[in-house]
């Protein structure tokens, strides 16, 4: 198990190098120049050139990449052009807010998605099943920022139940913290809830036809226990996999939703960094998001044996 974990972790390194490479060149291929953005339209070409030299942007791309990777390997993600402080520091500062939002959105997704999928499968072709499927289709189709705006319109502007946006750290009171979280978490979690519900339903429908389910019924077990014990543990792995992916995506930044709710998370930082062409910050953020995603998925893989005794990592 330990050896397996270590080898899997080593396997993450090429993935992350690839992420670094792609994000680096993609950013530099997009038109726009941070020096020009900083100095504004009035700046003379000399001043721009000087600033570019200061930032090291006059070097060939390969040299810039090499420099960035070698310092990144030492834990230094460089300094942000615009914030004037280390990238790592800026990212770490934003992480708690994003983490809160991701966890809240995941809770929404799991609490709605899993039971909805289970009940829909247990009552296949019923009105409930039909409704869940239609709502799930909506959930997947509706863009989360639009849902966010709609929720703001109804619950903030209309009913005044929740603030229109912003963030209160958990240290300044749990209730306030949650109040600011509800709407962004719902708009983010809804789509994931839809995905989880569809996945849960599909796995459940497959499992519920298995012989061992008939065996459980033939023991005299109630339908409730048949579904929640015998079937549920058998679909746990598929559900866990989508939940893990959902969590990775949610942690990776709810870029647009954070902007809609003026929520100070990593996603909003990335949007700002992109508009200002803040190369070190974009690269650092993308690397962090990718790392979180692959680590979450690794953890999910390592959890499999807990749910299925047939899976063993030697």
């Amino acid at each position: 198990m330990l050896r397996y974990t270590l080898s899997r972790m080593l396997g993450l390194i090429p993935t992350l190098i690839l992420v670094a490479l792609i994000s680096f060149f993609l950013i530099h291929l997009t038109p726009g120049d941070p020096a020009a953005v900083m100095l504004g339209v009035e700046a003379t070409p000399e001043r721009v050139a000087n600033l570019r030299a200061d930032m090291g942007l006059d070097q060939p791309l390969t040299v810039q990449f090499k420099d960035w990777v070698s310092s990144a390997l030492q834990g230094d993600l460089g300094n942000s052009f615009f914030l004037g402080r280390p990238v790592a520091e800026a990212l770490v500062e934003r992480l708690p807010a994003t983490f809160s939002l991701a966890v809240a959105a995941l809770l929404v997704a799991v609490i709605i998605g899993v039971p909805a999928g289970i009940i829909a499968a247990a009552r296949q072709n019923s009105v409930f099943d039909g409704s869940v499927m239609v709502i799930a289709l909506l959930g997947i189709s509706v863009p989360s920022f639009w849902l966010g705006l709609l929720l703001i319109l109804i619950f903030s502007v209309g009913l005044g139940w929740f603030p229109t946006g912003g963030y209160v750290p958990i240290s300044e009171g749990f209730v306030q913290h949650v109040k600011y979280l509800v709407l962004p978490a719902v708009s983010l979690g809804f789509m994931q809830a839809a995905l989880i519900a569809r996945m849960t339903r599909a796995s459940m429908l497959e499992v519920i036809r298995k012989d061992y389910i008939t065996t459980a019924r033939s023991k005299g077990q109630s339908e409730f226990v048949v579904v929640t014990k015998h079937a549920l543990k058998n679909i746990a792995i598929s559900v866990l996999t989508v939940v893990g992916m959902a969590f990775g995506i949610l942690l990776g930044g709810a870029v647009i939703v954070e902007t809609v709710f003026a929520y100070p998370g990593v996603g909003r930082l990335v949007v700002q960094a992109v508009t200002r062409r803040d190369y070190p910050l974009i690269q650092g953020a993308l690397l962090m998001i990718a790392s979180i995603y692959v680590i979450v998925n690794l953890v999910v893989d390592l959890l499999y044996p807990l749910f299925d005794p047939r899976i063993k990592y030697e």
Partner: protein
Amino acid sequence: MRILDEREKLLEIRNLKTYFYTEEGVLKAVDGVDLLLHSGETLGLVGESGCGKSVTSMSIMRLLPSPPGKIVDGKILFKGRDLAQLSQKEMRKLRGNDISMIFQEPMTSLNPVFTIGNQISEAILLHKDVTKREARRQSIEMLKKVGIPSPEKRIDDYPHQLSGGMRQRAMIALALSCDPQLLIADEPTTALDVTIQAQILELMNDLKKSYNMSIMLITHDLGVVAETCDTVAVMYAGKIVEYTDAKGLFGNPSHPYTWGLMNSIPRLDQNIEKLHTIAGVVPNPLDFPEGCKYNTRCPIADDKCLQQEAELQEIRKGHKVRCWHYERLEQLKKVH
């Protein structure tokens, strides 16, 4: 210890009709079946896939997928109580307790993510008022009875850690854990290799005697029937076509279908070039032929068979056949 008369009626099925209401039409999977099973007896229900034998057993257990399956008519009298009329709640008290079931595929009939012990104890805890510890003790006891070596270790194994034969033994332990009076065995040996088959059949026979229970054995294998059954019902297209004791069936098959089945068994004592087969295929249940349902494949069918289906009639004591021309079959037998 239950005190039961040797010939006490345990299960009596009268005119059972189980239909499936599908989009393509009504599928008459079981269409007027009568069966009688005395306590301590083994009844064989024989037929090809799709003849309605498994639907009959699922009707008794009231575990039909509903919709589309539905018992539309008939009585299933278990110790005088009509199971067809019971609520699911009442049925749950009977299932696993008075009536148990084992299935064809020991690979898939045990839940892969729970230990054997968990699955056997579950049944015991459901029907007996015992502690978890006692349920576990009884589970180990059951595993010992079905011949699983070192049961106190095996009880914590998962199904994938056991071989096919051991799994079927574990399944039998599970089914018998609450001392049922009726065991429905749906093709219990079909998925096992031949040596294991014999062991499992022997085990079932032994347990039947020591538990004084009845077995309803569903199979397509006439060899299995010969080894275990007291009475046999042959099913074809949702109906019973021949119903007699095992001796009568093998000594004197009187329905052309039964006769065809027996001729299809390879025999070592005869030198034949090619194995006999029954011509044609089982008719589509949504589109059964008019008259006798076997008329599309029967070597002796005539106009009468195309128009009208025969009743199940007693042609000699304890031997019922659904055929107009069972006498004509005798002549055919002489030719072969």
